[in-house]
């Protein structure tokens, strides 16, 4: 079975070399990878404190470049401002087997409080890996 990994990336764009071993293994085992950078407005803003598209583009390009250097070429896109909508679009088109989500510590509680993780599980029924980015 082709393993397709959908990565939702924010602050993780800075350094894949520092990813946890389990996450690296998940990336290594994927046959196809799609990276999206959904934006979460307001106090739970996920990519950074701003929602500037150019900044998001840079972050996305940085991670894609690192994945490519590591022999894991991937495609990527900036997602919709509504993270659930961004996931819906990506899942519909890419049909992943696994979702990988990087959250800053301060955002993890916010995502849970807003039910986004539950929403992803309920809507897509896919295995979901969540890990914390220390920034």
């Amino acid at each position, binding site marked *: 079975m082709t393993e397709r990994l959908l990565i939702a990336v924010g602050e993780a764009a800075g350094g894949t070399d520092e990813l*946890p*071993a*389990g*996450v690296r293994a998940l990336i*290594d085992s994927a046959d196809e990878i799609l990276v999206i950078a959904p934006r979460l407005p307001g106090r739970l803003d996920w990519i950074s404190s701003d929602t500037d598209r150019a900044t998001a583009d840079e972050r996305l390009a940085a991670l894609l470049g690192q994945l490519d250097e590591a022999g894991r070429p991937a495609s990527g896109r900036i997602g919709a401002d509504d993270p659930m909508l961004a996931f819906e679009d990506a899942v519909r088109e890419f049909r992943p087997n696994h979702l990988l989500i990087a959250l800053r510590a301060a955002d993890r509680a916010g995502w849970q409080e807003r039910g986004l993780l539950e929403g992803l599980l*309920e809507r897509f029924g896919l295995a979901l*890996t969540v890990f914390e980015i220390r920034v």
Partner: protein
Amino acid sequence: MSSESQPRRIVVGVDRSSVARVAREHAARRVGAGGRVIVAHVVTPTSDAMSRAVSGLEEERDAAARELVDRLAGAYAAQRAYGGGRVIAVHAFQPAPDWLGTPYYQRALDAYQSHGRELLRSLEERNDLGVELATSLLEGPPARAIVAAADARDADEIVIGSRGFGRVRGVLGSVSHAVLHEAERPVVVIPADAV
């Protein structure tokens, strides 16, 4: 960034739900040759179950022993398939909250501790498992026990089922929700139909 062949330490939280089996199988697939599967078996007995434990009913103990062995069987098989490794069985329990402050609380606690030790000892004494086995007994909330088991062994990740641990809280069970909140390492949540 290649890490596919490296052995990993994976904590998998299991209870008696079918989704826990799915999570366990996912963990077994990912652990790699020589890796370690730490099976955190968490128990949250109901008041009725605690009453039976205090009464010393043997069938309660027997049922729990069968359950634990069944939960671990998949991990054993997977470890053999991957050429060794080690299985660490962590048995954790939390007394029913409504027993707190009752005259029988300490008695129930003692019964469950004794029960847990017996379970783990029975596992250690088995010689047909084909893998190296270690055991550990913890007390406390299930999520905290799972996270503690992972922290103690510097696990690479924690694998849990999305609707496990009995008391359902939406799609994400209450224990899974708490593990996601408390863990400082990657958490893999496996829906029942994802494997």
